[in-house]
């Protein structure tokens, strides 16, 4: 009864059609696909239960607030796909915004494939997940490219500018200098690579024992050559230290040597110098700089980007 009410309240006529397709899929084709595919790739193995259908009007924030587990939130959002792709996408975005969502694999599953390719904000959503995973851009771009998602590295764009012109670039970078032409600022970006450094850290209680002793004395006597006295002292110091250490690894970012100019649509005080950002941008090609090479040379070239969005990377990296 509740289900009937919900279907009747759906706005476009196509929702009836989707409901029917869903019904057909449940009776006919779903079982044969499930055998050969990862169950995660399907919108829903059993279809949405009555209580899991998106209420009308659907509030994504309220939906995401129900789940403290990001994976569960994404799984429930996926259940909306057969009913309303808009609601499902809104729910997924709310999951990523409202929970510490880091599962790039779940986002890249076949269930979300159509949405990722056609939705306007999909690239920014992916960039946000990469940032929430710690901003290991190089590693995550490899995962994205394995799924044929067209987001590329700055290194690739610099190497083959014509191939990557106009395409999405994901870069971890710090802001250097900034200049403005009217209301449109352009920032100088310094690309950062993510690495780790090992260090030993003490665990538990450390015991240290210091001891020192001094022995001194004089010896006097008489020989056939004459009489005399010999004096001396002996000092001894010992230090004994016992502690237990473990090897720890800390993430550090360092300059890769690549730089870029990043165009902003308007001044943004939050894109501040001195900290790393995961930046999604369009690659606009290369420009020749006034740099320090000879006047006769072609001159050093710098990539120019149009910044779409940026995110602060989480300090912990997910691999």
């Amino acid at each position, binding site marked *: 009864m509740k289900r009937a009410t919900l279907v009747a309240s759906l706005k*476009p*006529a*196509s*929702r009836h*059609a*989707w409901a*029917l*397709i869903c019904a*057909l899929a449940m009776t*006919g084709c779903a079982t044969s696909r499930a055998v050969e595919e990862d169950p995660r790739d399907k919108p829903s193995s059993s279809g949405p239960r009555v209580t899991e259908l998106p209420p009308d009007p659907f509030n994504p924030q309220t939906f995401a607030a129900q789940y403290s587990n990001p994976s569960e939130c994404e799984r429930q959002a996926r259940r909306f796909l057969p009913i*309303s*792709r*808009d609601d499902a996408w809104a729910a997924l975005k709310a999951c990523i915004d409202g929970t510490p969502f880091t599962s790039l694999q779940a986002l890249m599953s076949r269930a979300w494939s*159509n949405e*990722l*390719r*056609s*939705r*306007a*904000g*999909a*690239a*920014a959503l992916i960039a946000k997940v990469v940032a929430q995973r710690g901003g290991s851009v190089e590693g995550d771009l490899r995962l994205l490219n394995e799924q044929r*998602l*067209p987001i590329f590295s700055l290194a690739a764009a610099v190497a083959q500018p014509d191939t990557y*012109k*106009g*395409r*999405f670039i994901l870069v971890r970078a710090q802001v250097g200098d900034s*200049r*403005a*032409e009217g209301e*449109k*600022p*352009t920032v*100088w970006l310094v690309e950062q690579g993510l690495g780790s450094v090992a260090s030993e850290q003490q665990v538990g209680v450390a015991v240290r024992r210091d001891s020192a002793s001094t022995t001194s004395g004089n010896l006097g006597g008489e020989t056939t050559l004459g009489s005399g006295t010999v004096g001396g002292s002996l000092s001894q110091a010992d230090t004994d230290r016992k502690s237990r250490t473990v090897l720890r690894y800390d993430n550090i970012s360092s300059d890769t040597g690549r730089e870029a*100019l990043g*165009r902003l649509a308007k001044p943004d005080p939050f894109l501040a110098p001195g900290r790393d950002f995961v930046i999604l941008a*369009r*690659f*606009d*090609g290369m*420009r*020749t*700089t*006034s*740099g320090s090479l*000879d*006047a*006769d040379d*072609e*001159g050093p070239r*710098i990539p*120019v980007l*149009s910044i*779409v969005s940026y995110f602060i990377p989480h300090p912990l990296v997910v691999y």
Partner: protein
Amino acid sequence: MLTVVFLSLLLGSAPNDGSPASSSSSFEAPPVADESPTAWSCTADTLRSGKECVFEAELTPSAANKDQAASNVRTIQGMGRTLCAEAARARSENGKADRNLASSCEKKYVSAAEVCDLEGTVPIVDAKGRFAPAARACYRAISGVLQETQLMATVAAPCCQCAAQRGCPGVGDRCYAELTQQQAGVSTLACMRDRCSDACSLVPSAAGQGKSATPSLKPEPRPNRGSASL
């Protein structure tokens, strides 16, 4: 039959199924590059400041023609007087340009600007004064002249002006160049030290160049030597 119904439903529902039209920011949209200039374009301002910049302009290339080539050189030479006057102004009295230095700069500038014709294929700057990508060699040449002038104005101008007023030898255009390159003659340096010690405080002493202008009258302080007993 079922397939036909399924497909017709699918196709029929497509326009209103809530799927987003591919916008320019979706992956399905064709690549879009913004070719417009950034805020880092090379202009007369970056020439003045010596700041790093990129060569980008909104221009349409055309067939080579002599008028365009001559116009390019004229455009750059037209900027020379102002730029040289500004470059020669640093550290001079009352913020006025050193006329000798400005005049010397203009001569060198005119010579450097000869490479600025770009063979008449494209205007050297666009409507907003941004240098064309092909203008790098020209930009570097005139930038070199201006930076050299600024250096001379900072290091040598007050000293050379004073030296000329006090009748020291080796003044004029060569004074600026020789002082900046630390190649001034012994007698010139000695005169500057004696008569223009304040104005020439930035000028390295003759002794610093390995040839002493005048023998030092005071003996060099000697390090203490000897032994101490407790």
